[in-house]
């Protein structure tokens, strides 16, 4: 009996896999990120931006290589490394050669290793990994490989820019660092300590703390410590519910200085902070939204809002990813030979519609770009987030941030 069941089930399986590979687009990109579960909102928003970017920037303009269209296919990895690897295999079997992923450095680590092994073991179905948001510095240092490209600034670059801005602010004498207890949180804390010491030894780090990730119900005790420490500023790499919980709690319980963050915008967070976060939350990001980077970007954003009225473009790097990939495919003259595309991507210079120039550093495949520190406000915005009237407005900009930063990457090219 069980064998019959199994047989039937597996037949169904091959049918479904077969059916879903019957789409018609010429160049397919697999988007492997959470589309269900607690992190689904970030994943879904990212997928919408990717789909829109492919439509608007490629297909509506006649496609690539004389009319080939581009399609982004969503794969739900439930933010699980295991599921990501299964979905990666499914994507490869569907003939997809470009993988994009961003949420969770843990998943990115699993993917980059799996892709390296896959490309080594299966030279005729190699794939590229375009990482648009996983910022663990290791990915472009000791764990780098030829197939991985990062379009976001890594945690160190962001901290470098953030601390450049912080030391300008002479009111800041004491800093409290708090983050989630995992590799990224630790990387933020290490970078902050190191760079503050370097750039402004007079600034005192009065607290440096990690809390369990995704498990804290009430941040009040942490907020108390921040307030009692007499800190003038807080640095945190928190994201999602941990960012919102921490931020709200710190503000509510009497802290009055700025909070420097990596991920305190969009996905409902801007709306939830609302008035309470005004002029308090600072955000490090790339791509200028307020003021908008270019007229082209304004048109694109408006078109995006027409399609997704409650959507945000909170990850402008997604559009850079699609733009640079398109340019690389055109340069290589093929979308099938990923080595050629990768070679074209390496050391590419690209004019971003969100302002500034982008440069894909060949040593480690880290994109170098302008970094902006913005403030959460409702004044003088071109575009708000979450339809809340609030958004992030640039205060300072670091051009081509960390252009010359060292890397431990020893790139092996095929």
């Amino acid at each position, binding site marked *: 009996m069980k064998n019959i069941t199994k047989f039937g089930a597996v037949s169904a399986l091959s049918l479904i896999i077969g059916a879903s590979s019957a789409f018609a687009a010429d160049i397919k990109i697999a988007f492997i990120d959470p589309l269900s579960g607690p992190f689904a909102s970030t994943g879904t928003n990212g997928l919408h931006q990717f789909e829109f970017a492919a439509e608007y920037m490629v297909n509506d303009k006649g496609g690539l290589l004389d009319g080939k269209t581009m399609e982004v296919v969503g794969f739900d990895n439930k933010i699980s490394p295991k599921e990501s690897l299964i979905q990666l295999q499914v994507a490869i079997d569907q003939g997809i050669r470009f993988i994009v992923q961003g949420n969770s450095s843990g998943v990115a680590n699993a993917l980059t290793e799996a892709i390296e092994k896959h490309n080594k073991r299966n030279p005729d179905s190699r794939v590229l990994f375009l990482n648009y948001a996983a910022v663990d510095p290791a990915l472009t240092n000791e764990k780098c490989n030829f197939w991985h490209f990062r379009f976001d600034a890594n945690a160190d670059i962001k901290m470098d820019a953030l601390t450049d801005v912080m030391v300008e602010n002479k009111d800041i004498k004491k800093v409290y660092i708090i983050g989630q207890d995992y590799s990224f949180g630790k990387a933020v804390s290490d970078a902050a300590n190191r760079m503050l010491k370097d750039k402004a030894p007079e600034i005192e780090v009065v607290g440096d703390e990690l*809390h369990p990730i995704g*498990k804290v119900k*009430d941040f009040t005790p*942490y907020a*108390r410590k921040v307030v*009692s420490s007499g800190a003038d500023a807080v640095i945190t790499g928190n994201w999602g519910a941990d960012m919102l919980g921490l931020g709200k709690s710190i503000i509510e*319980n*009497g802290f009055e200085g700025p909070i420097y963050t990596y991920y305190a915008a969009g996905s409902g967070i801007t709306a*939830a902070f609302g008035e309470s976060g005004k002029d308090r939350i600072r955000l490090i990001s790339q791509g200028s939204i307020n003021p908008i980077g270019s007229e082209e970007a304004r048109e694109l954003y408006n078109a995006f809002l027409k399609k997704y009225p409650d959507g945000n473009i909170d990850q402008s790097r997604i559009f850079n990813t699609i733009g640079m990939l398109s340019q690389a495919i055109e340069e290589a003259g093929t979308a099938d030979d990923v080595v050629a595309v990768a070679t074209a991507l390496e050391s590419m210079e690209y004019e971003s519609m969100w302002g500034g120039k982008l440069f894909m550093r060949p040593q480690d495949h880290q994109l170098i770009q302008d970094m902006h520190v913005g403030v959460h406000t409702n004044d003088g915005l071109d575009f708000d987030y979450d339809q809340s009237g609030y958004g992030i407005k640039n205060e300072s900009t670091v051009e081509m941030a960390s252009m010359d930063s060292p890397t431990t990457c020893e790139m092996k090219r095929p």
Partner: protein
Amino acid sequence: MDLILVNLIDGLVTGLLLFMLSAGLTLIFSMMGVLNFAHASFYMLGAYFAYQISLALGFWLGLLIAPLIVGVIGAGVERYGLRRVHQYGHVPELIFTFGLALLIEELVQFIWGKNQMPYNVPDVLNFTAFSISGNSIPAFKVFMIFVSVGIFLGLLFVLTKTRVGMIIQAALSYPRTVEALGHNVPLIFMGVFGVGTALAGVAGVIAGPVLGTFPGMAFVLGSIVFVTIVIGGLGSLWGALVASLLIGWITTFAKSYNIEMEGILNAIGIATPENLSDNPLRDFWALTSPQIADILPYILMVLILIFRPQGLFGKRES
């Protein structure tokens, strides 16, 4: 010193919130033998309903209506789901609630989406009640304390001073006898389940603005509620109260003070090994209390189960 006082207040808020969940759960558990895994899901429903109602009618009506809706849903779940599964035994019942918790989370995402809801403290209560050396105590927290203490007193009154309470207390210990006396035990079960889930709903309404209203809010709280009632002792309302406060204060203090494992080990005479960074136990030596604050209740529970399986105030074992 001031910080201790502040932490006491914060721990009290956390503990009382936990109590509102565990009180209902411990009643349900001891009466019906159901480890209701979906209890925290009703807490989540409370927050979401209150948010939806507050958009139209304001916070206060939300506080009033949302728990009622949650209670009715809870009673419905008992009547049309649990009662059916009850005949198969306790394990399927438990697994039923487990599945229900998953389904409720999916439903909430289906209806409200996956983002955090902008459900905020009402303006009337959005001010600082008082400050202790720079640490402000928001008025809403004071309000939370009053609501939960009020509910505790109400429960105590109902259970000890009214006829229904007497029957419930009797049914806690001798369900068969109570049934033999002609009381409608299924109806009592449904009522207790409804009231228990409504209490969880109240907790959701008042915790939603502070702790955030998002689809993962039930999962974050889920198992800790069990831990509370197991530590307190199954079926004991006082046990639930004491365990809730204990957990509230333990976690609050553990987070507020950076006690390091190295310090503790050195204090009891174990010297820090040389070359700590190469030591396989290095992570253990570097432990700090905030890191493990949220798993302390689990450690406490395992110890209690090993040495006193009936819990702090419990009279019967499992």
